[in-house]
């Protein structure tokens, strides 16, 4: 094996060029887009973060979680609670408590006064919940469909709980952030929103790097092996529970961060974030973009959400048709998603259909085998 590769730097540049371009575009856009569109883009990019997490657990590890909304919402709530507590006079309670006759702040609200606590809470709380849930489930070797359905049930539990607890976290109404002040500025203001957009781009890029780093080496291989044949991996000496719990925790943390960024950019966090369809949609983004490709996850999140927002602006009735048809199409015709299709030589297949002959297929495993050359 040739480990020393002279063209390494050039190759590296080439490999990372698309991402540099992506980052550049992302940085230029604030100058070009009107605030509303920029805000949309920012929100969709933050959804890209949760999609990355799903790609990690589903695309690589084969764990289809239908409950990422839990972690997404937890992140959002953590930040939402903090913002509720900003610029309150001492002793004053967030307004909604009054409606339900709550006179003292519930104890679990107290720590969210602290910005530092909140900064950690945004990702550690979801990670912790994911860790507990994941550990319990994985320890029992619950997997596949059972895992999916259980996560969905867990989602429902959280949804009902948050929905029903008016006195603790304002129930269905959720917490609003637009009118809160952060660092002295109104969160809903255009300037703040632009900064949040930039922050989102940065975080998304970091999240992508993190995932890339995770899956690149043998850790990534172990995840794939886990998906293939968990039992076998166990006999090789690996503890699947640890691996699964770890990726689930990471995906949970990513979801939390994503939820927090999404919340401040959409102005509200509500139990709707834990609605069943939303979590399924998250998976769909990844499926459409291409699972097991990372970029696909981000791309899928952006594409579908933009399509949704554009189409439902024009023809609200058809969006469900289009969305439904899209899933069908992707799952049946493009099982590897857009990016997967592209990487598997999709365009070539198309060209081939149009008459350009495909490259002559050889049988590498036999032709390359030196021992077989008789």
């Amino acid at each position: 094996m040739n480990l020393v590769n002279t063209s390494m730097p050039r190759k590296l540049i080439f490999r990372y060029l698309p991402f540099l371009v992506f980052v550049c575009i992302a940085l230029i856009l604030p100058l070009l887009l009107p605030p509303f569109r920029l805000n949309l883009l920012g929100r969709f990019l933050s959804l890209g973060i949760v999609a990355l997490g799903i790609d990690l657990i589903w695309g690589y590890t084969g764990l289809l979680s239908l409950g990422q909304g839990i972690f997404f919402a937890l992140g959002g709530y953590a930040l939402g609670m903090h913002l509720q507590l900003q610029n309150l006079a001492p002793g004053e309670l967030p307004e909604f408590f009054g409606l339900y006759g709550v006179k003292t702040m519930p104890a679990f609200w107290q720590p969210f006064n602290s910005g530092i606590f909140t900064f950690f809470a945004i990702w550690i709380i979801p990670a912790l919940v994911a860790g507990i849930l994941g550990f319990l489930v994985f320890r029992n070797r619950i997997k596949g469909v059972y895992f999916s359905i259980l996560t969905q049930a867990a989602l429902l539990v959280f949804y009902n709980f948050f929905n029903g607890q008016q006195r603790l976290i304002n129930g269905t109404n959720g917490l609003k952030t637009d009118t809160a002040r952060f660092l002295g500025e109104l969160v809903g203001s255009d300037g703040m929103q632009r900064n949040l957009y930039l922050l989102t781009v940065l975080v998304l890029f970091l999240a992508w790097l993190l995932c890339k780093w995770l899956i690149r080496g043998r850790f990534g291989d172990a995840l794939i092996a886990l998906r293939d044949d968990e039992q076998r991996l166990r006999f090789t000496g690996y503890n699947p529970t640890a691996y699964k719990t770890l990726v689930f925790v990471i995906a949970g943390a990513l979801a939390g961060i994503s939820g927090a960024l999404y919340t401040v950019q959409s102005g509200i966090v509500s139990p709707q974030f834990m609605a069943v369809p939303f979590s399924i949609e998250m998976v769909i983004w990844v499926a459409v973009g291409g699972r097991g490709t990372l970029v696909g996850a981000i791309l899928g999140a952006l594409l579908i959400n933009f399509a949704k927002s554009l189409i439902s602006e024009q023809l609200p009735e058809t969006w469900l048709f289009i969305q439904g048809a899209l899933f069908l199409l992707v799952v049946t015709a493009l099982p590897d998603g857009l990016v997967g299709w592209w990487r598997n030589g999709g365009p070539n297949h198309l060209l081939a259909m149009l008459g350009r002959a495909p490259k002559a297929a050889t049988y590498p495993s036999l032709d390359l085998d030196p021992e077989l050359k008789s």
Partner: protein
Amino acid sequence: MITSLSVVSCSGEKKAEGGFDGEVKVGILHSRSGTMAISENTVAEAELMAIDEINAKGGVVIDGKKLKIVPVEEDGASDWPTFAEKSKKLIDQDKVAVVFGGWTSASRKAMLPVYEAKDHFLFYPIQYEGQECSKNIFYSGATPNQQAEPAVDWLLKNKGKDFFLVGSDYVYPRTANTIMKEQLKAKGGKLVGEDYLPLGNTEVAPIIAKIKQALPKGGVIVNTLNGDSNVAFFKQMKAAGITPANGYSIMSFSIAEEEIAAIGPEYLEGTFAAWNYFQSLDTPASKKFTADFKAKYGDKRVTNDPAEAAYMMVYLWAAAAEKAKSVDDNKVREALVGVSFNAPEGKVTVQPNHHVEKLVLIGEVQKDGMFKILENQGFKKPVAWNQYVPETKGFTCDWTQKRPDAGKYKM
């Protein structure tokens, strides 16, 4: 102000089509898909009907210029955050002069900060739980003292003192019930139980069991369920024998003519509702409204209170704009208070707290799905901050006051 730009005044050089001198864009933001589409479609249709009527009469006339109202429709998709998102879009992207929208209180609560942050104007057409008074929202539906409270008074007087409260598990029923509980305390009623069902849930057997335990011999049930659960509730109540015939008085706050048709009048016959308008209201304005609505959307359709409130608020806005001689939301806001309109329910006038004076009616469901009006309590002034709830007792809201806390201050 950005919104004034949306008036494409062509300064007389070229007349816009149909004899208009320009247009003014307004947003219509309701759920056209998802769970709430059931109810919100009608409201949106009523708003569009009002817009068409106004346009047919020459639009909004400002300084002698005729402006055509152009509705920009958006879908809130029964998802509260989407309402906030679409509000931003209507304001920033479409630059509408005003937004007519919302149904559930949850969606209104989600939109409120957007309008406050952008200092824009939302017209909200549904009865709600009160305890809110925003400078940036105009409420054309009832506050609790225009619906729930008179209904409870009526029940206490005519039907009994033992109350069971059933509601969907979200803000409106929770808050409305908080108010009613205080009211019962104050008026000598007795709360024998309450329960909440998640929105959309249809398994009501446990609730029915509780009602039977709490009210074995009949009593009053106040129903603030919303959406699909109502159907299950009434079907199973009937099956379990909790019916008016067996001594139960059931009062609902979100069952209107439309919902009766969807549940089936057989199940609802003899139950009560309190609203500010019924299709059966026998006045010329009401009859005309219903006839126009049917002519426009089909014979089988019915009108109801939310549709009426939605219809009226478009007219109120247009009147306020003409009074203000501008569609600029700040000016409209100032002009709005005191504006009145001959609505199907009667002459309504906008009060300083951005609500309207409304007619209070108690009705009983008939076989044909219409209401028989049992009591007409006349017009009542809106009270935003509830006077039964200790926390808000003594507070009021008056946007004509030039004080920073005009939205909520001690009287």
